[in-house]
């Protein structure tokens, strides 16, 4: 009887109703409520009630999820999708003047594919071609919206640093990639040089900050001095010194991780996350002491020399030493199955399912400083959630629905149903184009 009533309500509810109830799901909250079987209520894009029994709001759209699993939207702490015109400004060793925010491409199909893999939020990073790379931005995978509408409001922007082979490669033509080219080599060519570039850049940034602080003080006193020249490169580093911008460091080896911690502490800034950090298990205590997070791969390694000492237990070992650990993709394909990447932490290192799932939900949310609004299914948080047809840490589980801010951005059944229409339209346009071409090229005479 009740069900009939609900069905009637569903029909009456307006399209894109503000209120949604997902019911009868196995909910893995990654929050204080743990795992349970029940419902989640969404109103105006926020989670308003979570529990075995909830008050059913009037006019709510019901998503019946019996036998299905509901988890928080997956967060990727390291991605390079959704950018236009290159994600590396590799021409210089310090490219902190460039900003991913300027080149967001909301049409990148990788956004849709990531969304279909359960990703709702991603940290879009500059590449690792140089010691200090460009400014980064956190996006929500709001497929179909404009570039500005994809930006995660309130998330602190970041900056990418890179250590080791990638940033030194461009400076080292002997046998390296630049060998035989006439191009001017770019400093640095060694790991020592990478450290030097970072330290020197922050010496400059401190001088720049002092110049602006002096100016600001004069203005505050009512004077009218000519302002110093605004330098976009140093401006971003000044923001790092002022804790207004997170530092995400691409790294592999234990020695360079320790170097980075020393250089940061000497220069007066903080590393927010070490990225890849495949030897992090060797220096987990030091990473934890610095207060940095670690965003790593599950079991990808040996694709280059500096990734040779990696082990699949890296994530679990770092977590056991008190490091905040997440798994990232660094890749548009891997991004589509981060859930099964998290599952590998159960096999290697024996984490339980809540700890494993945290590596792609609440932990990256904390690393990006957005855990107040996303990362778990809790009352008051953004309704960013993924519905799977099976246990979500299994690679057999398929994403059924993805909600961001309470809006369904991906619906597997709907996507499959729409495919036929798209195929037909494509065929129509291809035929039209072919017909137009044939009209332009008159048929050959038969005797030719």
């Amino acid at each position, binding site marked *: 009887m009740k069900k009939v009533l609900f069905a009637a309500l569903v029909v009456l509810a307006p399209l894109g109703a503000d209120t949604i109830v997902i019911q009868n799901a196995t909910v893995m909250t990654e929050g204080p409520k743990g795992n349970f079987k029940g419902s989640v209520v969404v109103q105006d894009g926020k989670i308003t009630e979570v529990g075995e029994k909830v008050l059913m709001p009037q006019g709510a759209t019901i998503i019946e999820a019996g036998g299905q699993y509901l988890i928080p939207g997956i967060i990727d702490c390291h991605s390079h999708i959704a*950018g*236009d*015109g*290159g*994600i*590396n*400004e*590799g*021409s*210089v060793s310090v*490219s902190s*003047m*460039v*900003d*991913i925010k*300027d*080149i*967001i*491409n*909301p*049409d990148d199909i990788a956004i849709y594919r990531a969304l279909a893999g359960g990703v709702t939020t991603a940290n879009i990073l*500059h590449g690792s071609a140089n010691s200090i790379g*460009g400014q980064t931005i956190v996006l929500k995978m709001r497929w179909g919206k*404009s*570039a*500005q509408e994809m930006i995660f409001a309130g998330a602190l922007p970041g900056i990418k640093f890179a250590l080791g082979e990638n940033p030194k490669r*461009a400076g080292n033509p002997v046998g390296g990639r630049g060998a035989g*080219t006439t*191009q*001017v080599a770019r400093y640095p060519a060694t790991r020592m040089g990478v450290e030097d570039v970072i330290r020197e850049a922050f010496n400059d940034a401190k001088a720049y900050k002092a110049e602006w602080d002096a100016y600001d003080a004069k203005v505050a006193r009512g004077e009218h001095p*000519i*302002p110093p*020249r*605004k*330098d*976009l*490169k140093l401006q971003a580093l000044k923001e790092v010194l002022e804790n207004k911008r997170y530092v995400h460091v691409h790294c592999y080896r234990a020695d360079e991780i320790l170097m980075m911690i020393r250089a940061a502490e000497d220069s007066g800034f903080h590393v927010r996350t070490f990225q890849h950090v495949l030897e992090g298990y060797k220096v987990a205590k030091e990473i934890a002491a610095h207060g940095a997070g670690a965003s790593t791969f599950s079991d990808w390694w040996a694709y280059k020399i500096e990734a040779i000492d990696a082990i699949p237990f890296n994530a679990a070992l770092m977590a056991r030493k008190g490091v905040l650990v997440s798994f990232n993709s660094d890749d548009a394909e891997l991004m589509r199955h981060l859930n099964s990447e998290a599952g590998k932490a159960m096999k290697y290192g024996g984490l339980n399912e809540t700890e494993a799932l945290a590596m792609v939900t609440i932990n990256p949310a904390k690393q990006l400083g957005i855990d107040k609004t996303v990362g778990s299914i809790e009352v008051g948080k953004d309704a960013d959630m993924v519905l799977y047809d099976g246990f979500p840490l299994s690679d057999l589980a398929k994403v059924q629905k993805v909600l961001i801010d309470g809006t369904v951005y991906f619906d597997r059944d709907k996507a499959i149903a729409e495919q036929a229409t*798209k195929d037909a*339209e*494509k065929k129509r*346009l*291809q035929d*039209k*184009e*072919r017909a137009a*071409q044939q*009209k*332009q*090229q*008159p048929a050959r005479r038969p005797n030719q």
Partner: protein
Amino acid sequence: MNKLLFASFLLSGAFAFAEVPSTVAIHNAKIVPVSGPVIAKGTVVIRNGLIEAVGDNVPVPPEAWVVDAEGMTVYPGLIDALSTVGIPGAAPAAGAGRGGRGGVAAPAVPVVETAPVQRSWGPEDRPQTTSWLLAADEIQANDRRIETVRGSGITTAVTFPTRGIFAGQGSIIDLASSEKAAELVLVPAVGQYIALGRGGFGGGGGGGFPSSLMGVISYIRQIYLDADHYKLVKEAYARDPRGMQRPEYDRALEGVIASKRILLPANRVVEIDRMLRFAAELRQPMILYGARDAYEPAAANLLKKSNASVLVSLRWPAPPARPPDQEDTDTLRILEERDKAPTAPAVLQQAGVKYALYSDGLDAPREFQRAVKKAIDNGLSREDALRALTLSPAEIYGVADRVGSIEKGKIANLVLTKGDIFDDHTTIVMVFVDGKKYTPAETAPGGRGAATDEPGNPGGIQ
């Protein structure tokens, strides 16, 4: 008698300027002034390069050379709103970039190689910047493209240096044949041409900074910050130089500061959105060029809301040449773009956006005509198409008081045709630039003189 004389003048060739009559009357023509209603049968009187009179009841001055234009139509000379005609070594296509994910890939025609560029190590090296250049100073009056383009009925071009990020300022020129480039110039400086091409690892610009789109954008942003600072310091120094270090002369900034508007490329919706925001951030009056995806409602809305002026490229996207048996692997989005791009002018017209059309390097008259016709076949009215190539570009560049329509007192830039100017089988009989008469060559490849080539053979090239 007059007629006979005129014919002999014709035979004497296009370069016999000394014998150009100072007064010409085009008589018995259908007149399309663009600024007002069509005159079914009337007269246009030209004196000393200007339009002296126009109307259905205008007397023919006794001293005038008369063109009996019975059965012909007079239009204002067309204006190409973004061109490179007359610029030495310029690639014919001043494209906003097509192909490639970033939409900022190389133009269709490779840019002529120049001397090796010093590797740039950052914005301070002012990479790929010649902002101080003025097209008017670069014009080569003997550029053969002037005559070719004129064969389309184009009498006026807004021509730009297009090499680099800050390429320099464009100039409005009349497409007359003259030995002195200065005689062509209508307005020497109309705005800074900005492109978002990049060098990169092994790319142009000496492989230096900037090598990415975000690098280019950050460079442009830094330039405008520097320009603001430069102005402040220079003003302070001018007020009282004593005890103050003199500001270092920076020609890159001088060129940017001297530009009263900027031209920015944008084809896709995301690029239109990005560049509208960017221009607002830079606080620069702006004209967008390219506008390939302006047919999308989102794009038209953004453009309308921002009150921006848009130049739409007539180089419609076309399928790549591929063997007939090769599979078409283009995505639905690409197919839709190719299908709908020629509807962009009609969509912008409907939305009330200020726009003009530009040749984008379609120099051959037949190619140019077909491109305009394609927009007409896709919903643009003939009147609106004509306006988008005459009065609208004149308004966008602020020169509607001298060109763009057939009105008393304006410059005598006119086109005389047999048939509607954008129709396939119409011939262009005469073109007047600054009151001087030119006859499009009949045999020019892709020409629209008396001899017409077969439709479906672009450019008439065999």
